[in-house]
């Protein structure tokens, strides 16, 4: 399998506003993601997982260490190129959906293509296909504020993958959903992964993580444990995850 994402000794230090006080969000992160993998990163709030995701998303840069995506060094990328890079290679699904209320569902999904200056004619069949797959065809002409949380998140997924990104980044995608719609979303992720989509998901829900193929545990700025699902079904995998978490609880 080809290596898609590689993180070497990433460290991130935030300088607090008062001089001298430094907060180390990431200590030393070592991580590889292969093409076609479905990886979940788990950790409590404050563990540094959001910082990690922001760095992969090129929204932030490490203080030291290297990040490679598809062999490109993300730490060397300029802001303008980073935006283009995000558009071309990454897809995002956020906890709070981040849909624009001012444009229709259809336009929300087409937004990344418009930003990449892609022709609208070529995008239309793709939009139809995705909408059918995600069961949002009937919603295309509606506006985000008219949708339920689950529907919104499916629209966000459509927006994330319409550009065929190398890596789909999901930041607590089930955080704002109830259990039923969470399940539906995770089914979609699983399906996407089966079709070859590489997914990196940050979550603190063990239920969501149990649907991934691999789970990384992150605490105090380092990856301190990882679990592979292997042949386990998601229920057993969930048990293992929960046990791991329990064993690592501060005593």
């Amino acid at each position: 399998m080809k290596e898609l994402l590689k993180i070497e000794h990433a460290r991130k230090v935030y300088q607090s506003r008062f001089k001298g006080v430094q907060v180390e969000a990431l200590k030393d992160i070592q991580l590889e993601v292969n093409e076609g993998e479905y990886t979940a990163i788990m950790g409590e709030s404050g563990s540094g997982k959001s910082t990690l995701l922001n760095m992969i998303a090129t929204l932030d840069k490490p203080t030291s260490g290297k990040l490679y995506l598809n062999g490109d060094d993300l730490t060397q990328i300029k802001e303008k190129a980073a935006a283009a890079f995000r558009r071309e290679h990454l897809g995002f699904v956020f906890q709070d959906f981040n849909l624009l209320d001012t444009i229709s569902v259809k336009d929300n999904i087409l937004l990344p293509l418009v930003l990449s200056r892609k022709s609208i004619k070529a995008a239309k069949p793709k939009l139809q296909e995705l909408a059918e797959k995600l069961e949002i065809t009937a919603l295309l002409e509606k506006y985000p504020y008219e949708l339920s949380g689950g529907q919104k998140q499916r629209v966000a997924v459509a927006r994330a993958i319409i550009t065929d990104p190398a890596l789909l980044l999901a930041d607590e995608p089930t955080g704002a959903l109830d259990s039923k719609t969470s399940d539906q979303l995770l089914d979609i992720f699983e399906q996407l992964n089966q079709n070859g989509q590489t997914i990196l998901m940050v979550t603190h829900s063990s239920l969501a993580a149990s649907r991934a193929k691999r789970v990384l545990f992150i605490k105090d700025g380092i990856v301190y444990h990882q679990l592979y699902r292997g042949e386990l079904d998601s229920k057993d995998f969930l048990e293992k995850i929960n046990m791991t978490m329990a064993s690592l609880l501060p005593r």
Partner: protein
Amino acid sequence: MFYAKLAFQNIRKNKQAFVPFLLSMIFLTALNTLMLMVANDPGLAKLQGAGAITQLFGFGSVIVLIFSVVFATYTETILNKQRKNELGLYNVLGMGKRELYKLTFFEKVINLVTTVVLGITSGVIFSRLAYLIIKKLMGVGGEFKFTLNPSILMITILFIAGVYAWLYLINAFNIFKSDPIELLHADQKGEKEPKAKWFLALVGLVSLVWGYWIALTIKSPVSAITNFFIAVLLVIIGTYLIFTAGSIVVLKLLRKNENYYYNVKHFIPVSGMIYRMKQNAVGLASICILSTMVLVTVSTTAGLFFGLNDQVQQMFPRDVMVTSAEPLTKLKQVAKTYAAEEDVKLSDMQYSRASQPLLVTKDANNFKVSDRMYYSVSDVDKSANVVLISLSEYNTLTKDNLSLNKTDDIFMYTTARSYPEKTMVLNGHKYQIKQQVNKLKDTGLLNVSPVDSYIVVMKDQQQIDSLLKEWFDTKKGEAYLAPAYALNFNIDLKDQAKRKAFIRGLSKEFAKTSDKQWYSFQDKDSYRESVKRFDGGFFFLGIILGTAFLLATTLIIYYKQVSEGMDDRERFVILQKVGMDEAEVKRVIHSQIMMVFIFPLAFAMLHVAFAFPLIKKMLVLFGITNWQLFLVVTLAVALIFSILYYIVYQLTARVYYRLVER
């Protein structure tokens, strides 16, 4: 005391909401102080021709008072909107409505005290400055002295307190009808996309075009005044509808065009503007109307003021003008002797006899003497003045040497733009126009008149007399039979005081010798003085109202930027996450700001351009026919306004950038 303390803290912590509110209230107080002080100045009442000026300033101060109430109400509603969350929070935390009434009451009292102290102080300071300006503009002397009138200050304070009471009522009503949950989540409601209102957009377009059409096609200045208000009303309605409904129709059409819409250059601006127009169309339309008002008020009054010399020259081709129904030979002699005694030269002397100006209705070449008794404004477009003068009088008056062979031949001069006909039919008598002559232009035979004038030169005086007898055979018309004698001359004196003394002496001499003869004596100098007072006062009022409207414009722009900045912040964060780079975000923000900046200004300029012919015609009523001068004044005012507008926009745009780019 707890509430007073809390209220004080609230104001301090909500600077962003309270500072603009307080600033505008202070400004309104200062403006009212200034206006009331000027309007009720004891020196003003002593001025020559004070009646018109006190009336003018009284009228101005009433407008400022009304404007203050309207504008204070606007700022209060904005303030209430901004503070809904905060009051909702207090409510949730256990403050009942009764306590909220108390709290906001103390807030209002603190605001009132601040407003009164700062407003009255700055008002008094500005008044001193205003007095200097008035003195300069109106050319008045020491009788117009700045004095602090405590009763005026009391009236201003009472008025401002009244306004605050009214604002408190609005505030209390808002609290009364609200419920806490709604207060807390006031700004989180999903916004519906506005519907395209084709019908309203069409109505807006029609009323705008109609208003423009009225402005362009007005013929006479008298009907200009009556039609002016209709045109203004139509344009205001048109502007509001086009900004609210028309803009959305156009944007939605743009959105339907996929090749245009799905382009990174248009996608964000068009979709953003649809929402922006829904929230801010009324604000933008108000900015446009207010800007137009500033431009029209200031350029009209400035046009009057700078056209002063024109106006005086039109009315007074000579320094002294005497008219009478009887020959003025005796007075002519008196003038000459008196001048010789005083060692002053009289020049450009004219002495003429003509008919009185006859009011006629005109249709192509057909002139009919009309009855003044049954005259109405609607006839004004067809009206004209006709003056008859004999050839010999004409030749002596203009030192020309023309001749007429037949009694059916005439010479003619007209103030109308053109008279293409070869003949003139006066109450059925047909005359051949031998030539149109131009030498009668500055002879004082014509009063400045809202309608076109025609001077007809006829072969001899008997012919004129018999015509007049034929036309005015009733008792009512008898007055027209009398001839109009005019004696006009210039005084070759430069020094103002000497001129004044000479004119006073001359009029006394005239009064001594005239016995029972009726005559009218007018001099250019006192006319200029009174006109300057009037025009200067008008210009001053224009500046004051212009400043008031400009303030309103500024504040609306400011509030608009703040509310838009808060809304757009979220949108741009999302766009950046989805892959829009910073430079592009900045470019989009900038282009949106520019669009919203230029749109109302461009519309206001368009309004002024169409209003120009109309105002030009109204100024003719005041004797200002030099429209090139008025054009220059208007362009200058427009330029200055654009610069001020740009500065205001730049300053407030910073607030927007700060909010968006945080």
